[in-house]
């Protein structure tokens, strides 16, 4: 085996009482792709931040190419040949690729000379690694996959020999992800060492040479990728066997609960974010909406929930015809029997400074059982919350704990318990397991499935194909604000969904599916 390009020996870091990293040891052999996998909160990001100089370890040692180093800031990390591609890109949107890459390495007061130098070097790099990007277009006009390539070029321009990628595929279509993997292989062939942080088992299996598993701040296992399997890794991540399926009843669907006809939602600039979308959700089915994030799913969900107005079309729900001229707000939608688990629980689903029991009536604060004449009936609200906390295993149970003091998974359970607990006819769910750890994912999936099994209708929006395919009876795919196809549960696979998500399916072939 090659020497270690990056070696960690006994690295520990704690924040207050939380031991984020405990005695982490790791050797990443030079010129390999090394995966680090773990649940949210397992300590992956902390570890990467230590390597990149955002945090200093409390104890332990970092060695780069055999030399013991101390890294105080990202400048030093860069000087040591470490490059980092963050999950959320660190690009100036209005700048071109060239300007972004040059940023911080202008080399003088006047830009011209530096520009020439950067352009020349980029031409070499592009040729070497097949990383083609348009240099003179503002990055906000470029696709996400291209923006990511710019991030990679940025690190290569700074002579990175160790490349850290943090959840790089979260924002990519399957095809874009494949392109990324090709690039990573080319880099590896050139001797670049790559550290891939992810929670997606499939990627680990597809591309890495070795994988290290983190759990609760500790490094629990190192494996040769070829010698392990997805179930083994999943088990190592959560520390117990994971049940990969949910309990689904075979059942026929009932009456149509929600019917949407030619719904168009425009943003402030008048651009159609949702374009003439029609769909139906019947009792006893889960309709999944797949798509790369930002293709109109959020707007669709919010328009249905009465949060944002729509400009054309019609929504029929619970005997009510909703049109742009007769809009219905979110409070009324709830009264009609539509509950909504929003995509972003921090932005919408919870009021973070509120105690958990207070967040547990958000949207239902006017319901009779929570009121007591003029005042809120706090004891009743707390009693109900305590019951739900038990039922949904929300930890810790304390109803007075601030909503912001719960972990992501438990915050999501608070929202889910509230919306499911309201006993709606139809449930809108957006990204139910984003930022939620594996144990809770299974639990949340089962609760959604239980609702379906009880004959309720569910509209599920998710960017995780696994989730869509596990739960949905029918799958609609959105791209650029339109529904590009519909696939039944039995026919669905990543291939066909991926093509529909990129709207690249042969039109003749997709005709049969179009909604």
């Amino acid at each position: 085996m090659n020497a270690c390009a990056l070696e960690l020996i006994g690295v520990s870091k704690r924040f207050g009482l939380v031991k984020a990293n405990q005695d982490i040891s790791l050797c990443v052999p030079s010129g390999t792709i090394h995966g680090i996998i773990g649940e949210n909160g397992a300590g992956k990001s902390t570890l990467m931040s230590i390597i990149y100089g955002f945090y200093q370890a409390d104890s332990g040692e970092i060695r780069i190419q055999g030399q013991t180093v101390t890294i105080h800031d990202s400048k030093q990390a860069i000087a040591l040949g470490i490059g980092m591609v963050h999950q959320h890109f660190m690009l100036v949107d209005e700048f071109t690729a060239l300007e972004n890459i040059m940023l911080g390495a202008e080399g003088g007061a006047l830009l011209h000379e530096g520009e020439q130098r950067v352009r020349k070097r980029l031409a070499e790099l592009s040729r070497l690694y097949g990383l083609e990007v348009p240099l003179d277009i503002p990055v906000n006009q470029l696709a996400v996959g291209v923006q990511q390539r710019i991030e990679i070029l940025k690190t290569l321009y700074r002579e990175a020999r160790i490349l850290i990628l943090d959840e790089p595929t979260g924002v990519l279509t399957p095809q874009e992800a494949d392109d990324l993997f090709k690039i990573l292989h080319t880099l590896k062939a050139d001797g670049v060492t790559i550290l891939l942080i992810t929670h997606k088992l499939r990627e680990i299996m597809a591309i890495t040479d070795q994988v290290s598993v983190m759990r609760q701040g500790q490094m629990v296992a190192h494996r040769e990728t070829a010698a392990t399997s997805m179930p083994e890794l999943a088990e190592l991540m959560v520390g117990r066997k994971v049940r990969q399926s949910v309990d689904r009843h075979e059942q026929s669907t009932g009456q149509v609960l929600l019917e949407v006809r030619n719904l168009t939602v425009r943003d402030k600039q008048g651009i159609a974010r949702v374009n003439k979308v029609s769909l139906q959700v019947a009792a006893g089915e889960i309709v999944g909406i797949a798509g790369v994030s930002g293709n109109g799913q959020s707007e669709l969900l919010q328009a249905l929930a009465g949060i944002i107005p729509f400009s054309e079309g019609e929504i029929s729900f619970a005997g009510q015809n909703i049109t742009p001229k007769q809009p219905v707000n979110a409070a009324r939608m709830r009264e009609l029997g539509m509950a909504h688990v929003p995509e972003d629980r921090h932005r919408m689903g919870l009021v973070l400074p509120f105690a958990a029991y207070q967040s547990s009536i958000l949207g239902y604060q006017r319901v009779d059982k929570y009121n007591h004449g003029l005042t809120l009936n706090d004891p009743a609200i707390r009693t109900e919350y305590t019951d739900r906390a038990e039922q949904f295993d929300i930890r810790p149970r304390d109803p007075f704990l601030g909503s912001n003091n719960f972990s992501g998974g438990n915050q999501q359970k608070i929202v889910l318990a509230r919306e499911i607990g309201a006993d709606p006819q139809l449930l809108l769910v957006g990204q139910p397991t984003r930022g939620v750890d594996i144990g809770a994912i299974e639990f949340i999936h089962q609760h959604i499935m239980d609702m379906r099994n009880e004959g309720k209708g569910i509209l599920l929006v998710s960017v995780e194909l696994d989730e869509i395919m596990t739960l949905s009876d029918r799958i609609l795919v959105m791209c650029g604000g339109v529904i590009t196809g519909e696939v039944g549960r039995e026919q669905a696979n990543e291939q066909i969904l991926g093509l529909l998500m990129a709207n690249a399916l042969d039109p003749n072939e997709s005709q049969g599916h179009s909604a």
Partner: protein
Amino acid sequence: MKAATLNKFLSIFLLPVLNILTAFIFTTLLFLVIGIDPWEAAKILVQGAFGYEEGIGYTLYYTTNFIFTGLAVAIAFHAGLFNIGGEGQAYIGGLGVSLVALGLGSFLPPIFLLPLAILAAAAFGAAWAAIPAYLQAYRGSHIVITTIMFNFLAASLMVYLLVNVFSEAGQGMPASRAFPDSASLWTWQAFMAQFGIEFAASPLNISIILALICCVAVWVFLWKTRWGYELRTVGANPEAAIYAGINPKRIIMLAMLISGALAGFVAVNELLGVQHRLVLGFNTGYGFAGIAVALMGRNHPIGVMLAALLFGALYQGGAELAFEIPSVTRDVVVVIQGLIILFSGALEFMYRAPLQRWLLSFAREA
């Protein structure tokens, strides 16, 4: 859990106390620099504010005003709004009081007149706040800017009215004629006399009871009713509010109407309780001090009450100080207030991080 309780203790008790202590330390240094014995000055200040009945009366009379304006700022703050217009709203509240007292004072008995005048104070204050609120909610004009401008508008309007409408012929004074006797609130002296208790004469009047009722009412409203719940939701997370079907525009109107009404009550204390006529600038300073009071009081009615008391004591004790020590002018009192605002407002969290670390390490050892 343990950490959460410690945090609460920290932000509710320890931080405010430390902030005020810091302000006093700097005040001490200031006194040393200008050659005043700080110990002597502190004694005069405390003695002046709390040492004798008349002094206490003055302190609580100022406190009453600060409670009204402090609550006004606090309630708007919970809706995410910064109401800088307490000054103007109090002033226009005075217009309402005067119209009722002067217009109806001769036919209505006090039992009808006084409630009506109090309602008028609230209604006029609320109306003056309603315009910036509407502009914020439906036109997107920033409420900080509009409420500041409305302070100037109120001042100009009142000067005009006092000079051209209210002033008595031949007097040439920017003040209205005196209110009829039926339009005057019991002084604290008269009120206590009902129970056979003697209390020295002072401007303190039964408005302070209204102020305390307002504290309780604001607390119940904010934390115990669904409207308060909705108001706080809008303040803490406007997007969550829309998600919950709450209309933020209506909440902005609601919060500012209540805020303006509370500020308007300053006129009750000042005009019905003390001046018994509409005078120029009776509101001066109270609206702005209310911002500091709310800030110091963490926008909680109990905190506002305590902060108002502190400011009331500083006003009264400071006046005494200026009287007793010639080298102290009223400006020195303003400087002390400024230091308190600086340390408990602007530098509110200066001690937070180190204290938190210290307390946590303490908790760990325990």
